[in-house]
């Protein structure tokens, strides 16, 4: 059994929404957003877990809780056996920050434009008092640049961020994490702003680092296709909860929660022969506000399979297929995953519905 690096239990984070002056005069009760609403997950050593879902579903909040950039409202979060929700002394937090590092989405704003690459990479060393002499620190910095394949390091070490491409900047951001030799990295949309080829190159690099540097990743993204390549395990979030989770290939090939099913039908795939067909996307309306999470199953207002029980009783995790592949749906395992397309005739009129079988998917 591999060692668990991160273990979240009933982890919860609520934000109070700021009120207008008038509202506070009228003494209205403060609105609360349930950004993360009691989630459970485990991440094993040297594995990577993906967190996917629509904008605002709580992915970044989970990342920030794990990084201790936010304090949980309730629940437990163990990282290497230590409950970080209970961590509140400065020294403890500082030591924790050395073990866990974060990479952000925007390589253009996450690096200080006034600092050279050398200074950007030296800063964490100074904060954590690593490397006694300048020579020692320089050696560590060069090694970190080599690790992210910015070689030869001499060519990059004296550049400012504006002298780097987007992909190179993101490499510097990764080097800044690696230099502290962390155990665990939270990467929040690390490649979303980059071109396809640069994205592929960086994902390859991050995957190599898992092996070479014994890293464990929490990978947050709205780009689900990248999780198949980069992650071992995936969690699908909807309105603050992980509604389905499991080994990545199982979840993507055999989704059992209606939300995951709808999300996956929507993912564009490089299939050029369906020009006169549109996809049936089995999900209604728009995502409700986090201040107003529906009773019962949180997905019932948009689910095409809603029954009475869904409106009253919140579903707990079921594992109808394989162990470790779970979904919070009363009917998980009974609802078949179907990809349906509608053939369009002259003038764009819907002609007929066709079903696409998994074996017909060539991409």
């Amino acid at each position, binding site marked *: 059994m591999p060692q668990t690096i991160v273990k979240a239990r009933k982890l919860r984070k609520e934000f109070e929404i700021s009120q207008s002056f008038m509202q506070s005069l009228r003494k209205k009760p403060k609105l609360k957003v349930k950004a993360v609403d009691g989630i459970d997950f485990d991440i094993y050593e040297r594995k990577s877990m993906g967190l996917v879902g629509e904008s605002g579903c709580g992915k970044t909040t989970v990342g920030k809780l794990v990084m201790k950039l936010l304090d949980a409202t309730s629940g437990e979060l163990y990282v290497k056996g230590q409950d970080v929700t209970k961590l509140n002394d400065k020294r403890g937090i500082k030591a924790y920050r050395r073990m866990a590092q974060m990479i952000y989405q925007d390589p253009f704003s996450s690096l200080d434009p006034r600092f050279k690459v050398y200074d950007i990479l030296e800063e964490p060393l100074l904060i954590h008092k690593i490397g006694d002499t300048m020579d020692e620190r320089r050696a560590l910095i060069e090694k970190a640049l080599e690790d992210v394949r910015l070689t030869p390091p001499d060519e990059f070490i004296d550049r400012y961020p504006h002298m780097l*491409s987007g992909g190179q900047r993101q490499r510097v951001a990764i080097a800044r994490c690696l230099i502290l030799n962390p155990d665990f990295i939270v990467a929040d949309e690390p490649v979303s702003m980059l071109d396809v080829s640069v994205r592929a190159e960086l994902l390859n690099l991050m995957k190599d680092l898992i092996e070479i540097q014994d890293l464990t990743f929490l990978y947050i993204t709205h780009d689900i296709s990248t999780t*198949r390549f980069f992650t071992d395990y995936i969690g699908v979030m909807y309105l603050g909860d992980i509604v389905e989770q499991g080994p990545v290939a199982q979840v993507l*090939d055999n989704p059992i929660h209606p939300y995951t099913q709808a999300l996956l039908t929507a993912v564009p*795939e490089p299939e050029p022969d369906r*020009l*006169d067909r*549109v*996809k049936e996307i089995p999900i209604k309306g*728009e995502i409700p506000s986090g201040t107003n999470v529906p009773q019962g199953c949180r997905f019932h207002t948009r689910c095409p399979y809603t029954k009475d029980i869904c409106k009253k009783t919140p579903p707990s995790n079921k594992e109808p297929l394989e162990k470790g592949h779970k979904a919070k749906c009363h009917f998980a395992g009974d609802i078949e995953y179907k990809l349906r397309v509608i053939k369009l005739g002259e003038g764009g009129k819907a002609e007929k519905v066709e079903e696409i079988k998994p074996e017909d998917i060539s991409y």
Partner: protein
Amino acid sequence: MSTKRILSVKDLSTHYFTSKGVVKALDDTNFDINGGESLGVAGESGCGKSTMALSLLRMVQPPGKIVKGSIKIGGLDVAQLSEKDARRKLRWQKISMVFQGAMDIMTPVYTVGYQMKEPLKYHKDIRGQKADEICMRYLDMVDLDPELFYRYPHELSGGQKQRIVIATALLLEPDLVIFDEPTTALDVVVEARIMNDLKRLKKELNNGMIFITHDLSILAEISDNLAIMYAGWIVEHGSASRIYKNPRHPYTQKLIAAIPRLHKDIDRLEYIPGAPPELTNPPKGCRFHPRCEHAFAKCSQVEPKEYFEDGVMVRCHLYGDD
């Protein structure tokens, strides 16, 4: 169905004359678009996609300038048009455009309806009740509740706003609509719904469409034809299905192989080492040669010409017989 020629672009070059030199953002570009047909344009950032779109609209800003070629649409030669005629006869009426993040430029103080009616008033002198009706019909066409006509932008979601921008671009029944990264800022579910709408509208309205994005998966959903751009050149152009299934140009091959797949386990993603060149000083010969694993002596000396094979244009010395 008619296959009316809508747009014809010949030898088009657009350069930016900057203090650092001439940026050759678009060079020797040729393509046509017929009614009911869509062209997908893909390539890395900075390869000239937006410059191409702005050229078609005659909206290239100084220091940029169309230096060569012709753009024919509905009896107009865009490259020769005066600014006044470009405003009066070309934009909105013949070609309209949906920019990336267009939804963010809706003015918060006016209702959706007020903003939609502007082009009707300006270009066609349609006002009042009649204008309201037309706008609501187009809102319905992009799958929105016509009641949104009376709402303010801040009351709407990103997806709703983006659809309103699309409806507005269609209002004057232009021959051609250009979409530059139309869904980049949106979630997949919203994106898929909008792509569905656009596919339907393409059949319903039978106009031409150009889609610009770096996301080849999205393009596969909507493009009849594909143009792959590299460093200011179209390097491969033709039927999207043929190009996806059998990419010929080494650059296209790599771009397609770099797409991560939802239903396939891949050990390593393909990528193109190095970075695209500065367009002030593009490499001699084939602009892709410093990054191409098939490059041979001729590639760094001689510019490859357009070569046609099986209806697909490819600009690479591996093809052709000279």
